[in-house]
């Protein structure tokens, strides 16, 4: 629903080719594994085959004796005494006393070739004492479950909780007991979701170099070069300023590349090998076994509804495991799950539980999809019971500006009502359904994020502009930032070059995460451009001998305004740039802040499915994503985020899951068995961009990356109920599970 007022912009809202497009369609773009360096060695990592085991002894002598091996490291090579999350990162980088999950790194080797490094890894001998393990969240929270780590619980955990509970959350408002009493229908259901992986196609890769003097460099595929710098420095006890981290092009991240895995190993190996650079490229099975998937969840939800569809109370109790370390996004799941609804009486309880699985990492709207699966599924079931239209119920209870969110704060400008109204009018909702077909709708929410941001913009001698940003371009952000800067300066899109720079070039930037790049980097770049404009106006004022305040910037040129209007011809950016050496030197603009004014994004999805009663296979017939972008700077990449998020959600709903065997080993660590959606599984993904501008951003941007993965899980479950009458409460809804549920319902 692009509004007419978008015409007020010359460039924002248009769809130019992305600046890095040519490199990326010709194979020239350099990703993590595409770089080599003189004297380079190859690294490889030995990983635990056990889910939980004491490491009694590591004998690296045979590996060290192999010709071509230049360094071997184990945990003994790392500094000791770390605490908190820094200890967690170090422990996850390389196991200490225990291997905590199948795939946990035990030792690493650097050698003159990749084949020699792999051979050397096989020569390392490890004595393990295998311990009892637990991988399922409901098993891990039992009082008698194998204990992953004593003393890992923080102060939030009340006395007497089971030993693997490491964080506890409890918040709410109103009186849920009274709220449930006011309801005509109260329902309570339990739901489960399985862990899924972000599934970026580019495996983690880095090239690290570290000298005996503690100075180092790294080339790495990451969403955040400063995070890599800070985490590697912490884990290795380095001085952060001495480590220079350059981000490669990034082959997808979705949150999974906001932390470290093998990066410190390349630095440690390099230092031990006399400072020779060490390249480590993970295999796909290493990615799946040892990098952060998302958490798995077990959830109970209770909701009260009046017979005309008003929500009176809700209670959510979620348990999540995020691997052998604290950090499952159970808090985020609780914050988001009821956010689309105005409910007076709410209660949230959450448990973060340890289990013998890899340390979870962020995955697109961390936590929100699980919570939405539970809440949106139950609301849908209640609508069906009360014979209410699920769209009307969502509208009736929708939060608006000024409402207090279920998790506490008061909403500023939000566009949920606009999203729901636009959805209800979409033609997909009136397509007639055939036998075995069903339609499902669901809403989704993500806060969006600001984060530390530092941007520099400099005017070149010819009046073009270069922008240095710290957020890697993961899906077209160079294009959107160039559009905003060109719009602000009044120059052509092609006259702006956006460079993603290394850590030495700017102040600290948080990663491209939290849907923040177009919001935060875009806002900072716009403010930096305005600072350069101010300086250019000053140069013109000096030249004309008039007051700086009496100069305005119009269409890429300074011109006299107010009483001096028309006294001098406009001085273009090109003229000013040409002479800047003699008028005061280089002209640039900077901006550093944690930009305020974050705007949350709501979405609503509508899906039509057909379920084959013979096989239980669910086919997606039609899919619609409607979401509030605030303002779409480059609509094609906004649509791309909507479509990509929806399809990741479809995979989570129907196919994807981490399958652990009784031995605690991951049984599907290759793409053949960890099956993500392929082109032939899907129809076109229809999108509608709603624009309720965010007043906190110069162009109204909210951030669009994450919300879209949230609604598919419940929307598809709701559609399956429409098609079959069966309610699926455990993801993924594989043919086997759907068929079993169909059979059970017929008995």
């Amino acid at each position: 629903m692009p509004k007419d007022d978008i015409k007020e912009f010359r460039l924002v809202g248009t769809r130019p080719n992305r600046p890095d497009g040519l490199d990326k369609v010709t194979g020239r773009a350099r990703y993590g594994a595409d770089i080599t360096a003189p004297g380079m060695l190859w690294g490889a990592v030995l990983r635990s085959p056990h889910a939980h085991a004491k490491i009694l002894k590591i004998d690296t002598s045979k590996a060290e004796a192999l010709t071509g091996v230049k360094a071997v490291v184990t945990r003994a090579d790392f500094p000791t005494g770390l605490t908190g999350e820094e200890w967690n990162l170090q422990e996850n980088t390389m196991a200490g006393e225990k291997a905590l999950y199948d795939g946990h790194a035990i030792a690493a080797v650097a050698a003159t070739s990749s084949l020699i490094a792999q051979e050397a890894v096989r020569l390392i001998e490890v004595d393990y004492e295998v311990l009892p393990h637990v991988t399922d969240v409901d098993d891990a929270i039992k009082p008698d479950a194998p204990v992953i780590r004593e003393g890992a619980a923080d102060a939030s955990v009340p006395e007497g909780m089971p030993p693997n509970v490491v964080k506890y959350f409890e918040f709410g408002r109103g009186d849920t007991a009274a709220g449930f009493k006011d309801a005509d229908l109260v329902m309570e259901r339990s739901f489960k979701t399985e862990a899924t992986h972000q599934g970026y196609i580019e495996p983690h890769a880095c090239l690290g170099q570290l000298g005996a003097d503690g100075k180092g460099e790294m080339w790495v595929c990451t969403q955040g070069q400063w995070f890599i710098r800070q985490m590697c420095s912490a884990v290795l006890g380095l001085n952060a300023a001495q480590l220079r981290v350059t981000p490669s092009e990034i082959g997808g991240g979705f949150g999974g590349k906001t932390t470290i895995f093998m990066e410190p190993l390349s630095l440690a190996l390099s230092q031990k090998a006399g400072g020779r650079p060490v390249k480590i490229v993970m295999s796909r099975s290493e990615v799946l076994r040892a990098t952060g998937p998302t958490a798995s969840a077990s959830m109970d939800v209770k909701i009260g509804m009046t017979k005309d569809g008003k929500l009176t109370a809700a209670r959510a109790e979620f348990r999540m495991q995020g691997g052998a370390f604290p950090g499952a996004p159970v808090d985020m799941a609780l914050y988001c799950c009821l956010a689309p609804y105005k409910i007076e009486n709410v209660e949230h309880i959450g448990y973060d539980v340890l289990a013998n699985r890899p340390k979870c990492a962020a995955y697109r709207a961390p936590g929100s999809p699980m919570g939405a699966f539970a809440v949106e599924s139950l609301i849908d079931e209640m609508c069906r019971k009360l014979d209410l239209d699920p769209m009307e119920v969502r509208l009736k209870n929708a939060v608006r500006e000024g409402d207090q969110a279920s998790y506490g704060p008061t909403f500023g400008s939000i566009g949920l009502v606009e999203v729901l109204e636009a959805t209800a009018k979409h033609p997909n909702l009136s397509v007639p359904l055939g036998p075995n077909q069903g339609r499902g709708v669901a809403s989704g929410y993500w806060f969006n994020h600001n984060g530390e941001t530092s941007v520099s913009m400099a005017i070149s001698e010819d009046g073009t502009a270069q922008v240095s940003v710290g957020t890697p371009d993961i899906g077209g952000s160079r294009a959107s930032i160039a559009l905003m800067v060109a719009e602000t300066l009044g120059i052509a899109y092609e006259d702006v070059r956006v460079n993603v720079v290394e850590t030495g070039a700017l102040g600290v930037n948080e990663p491209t995460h939290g849907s923040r790049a177009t919001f935060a980097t875009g806002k900072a770049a716009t403010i930096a451009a305005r600072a350069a404009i101010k300086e250019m106006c000053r140069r013109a004022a000096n030249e004309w001998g008039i007051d700086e305040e009496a100069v305005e910037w119009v269409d890429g040129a300074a011109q006299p305004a107010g009483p001096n209007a028309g006294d001098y011809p406009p001085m273009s950016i090109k003229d000013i740039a040409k002479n800047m050496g003699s008028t005061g030197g280089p002209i640039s603009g900077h901006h550093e802040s944690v930009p305020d004014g974050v705007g949350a994004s709501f979405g609503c999805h509508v899906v039509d499915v057909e379920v084959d009663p013979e096989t239980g296979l669910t086919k997606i017939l039609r899919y619609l994503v409607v979401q509030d972008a605030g303002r779409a700077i480059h609509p094609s990449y906004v649509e791309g985020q909507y479509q990509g998020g929806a399809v990741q959600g479809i995979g989570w709903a129907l196919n994807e899951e981490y399958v652990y065997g009784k031995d605690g080993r991951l049984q599907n660590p290759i793409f053949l068995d960890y099956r993500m959606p392929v082109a032939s599984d899907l129809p076109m993904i229809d999108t509608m961009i709603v624009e309720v501008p965010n007043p906190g951003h110069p162009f109204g941007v909210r951030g669009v990356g994450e919300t879209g993965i949230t609604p598919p899980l419940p929307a598809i479950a709701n559609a399956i109920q429409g098609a079959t009458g069966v309610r699926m409460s455990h993801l993924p809804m594989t043919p086997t599970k759907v068929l079993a549920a169909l059979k059970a319902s017929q008995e």
Partner: protein
Amino acid sequence: MSKIHVTTVVNGDEVEFLADPRETLLDCLRDHLGLTGSKEGCGTGDCGACSVTVDGVLVSSCLMLGVEAQGKRIATIEGMANGEELHPLQRQFVEHAALQCGFCTPGILVAAKALLEKNPDPTETEVRYWLAGNLCRCTGYDKIIRAVMDAASEMRGAA
């Protein structure tokens, strides 16, 4: 393990390299010939990021040994544009925003080109099934399919 001398033609140029018999064609392209446009997403034939053609046949270069390239004609993403001039598929991909991270893009372009050489007028379903061996995690495939369909129609128009 002693290395084997391999002579082959890549993107029209005769090249030679020494391959360890355990190295895949993908390893040889990337590490011996510096052709890093072909990507390794899985190493097991499941993602298509390493797609190349060998004597005109679309293959996953991670599933073929480098030594098997002896005497063959290989085409990779680096040879797809004609000098400055992009192949219609490459141009349509940029114009349709059919890539986000771009990591799957080289493999998908090579696979799509092989499709259009066989079938210049594919249906949407045919494109979807042909590309079912190429994973893209970013785009949900929508814009990729549209770009391939539009490139096909452009190429038919030009023919």
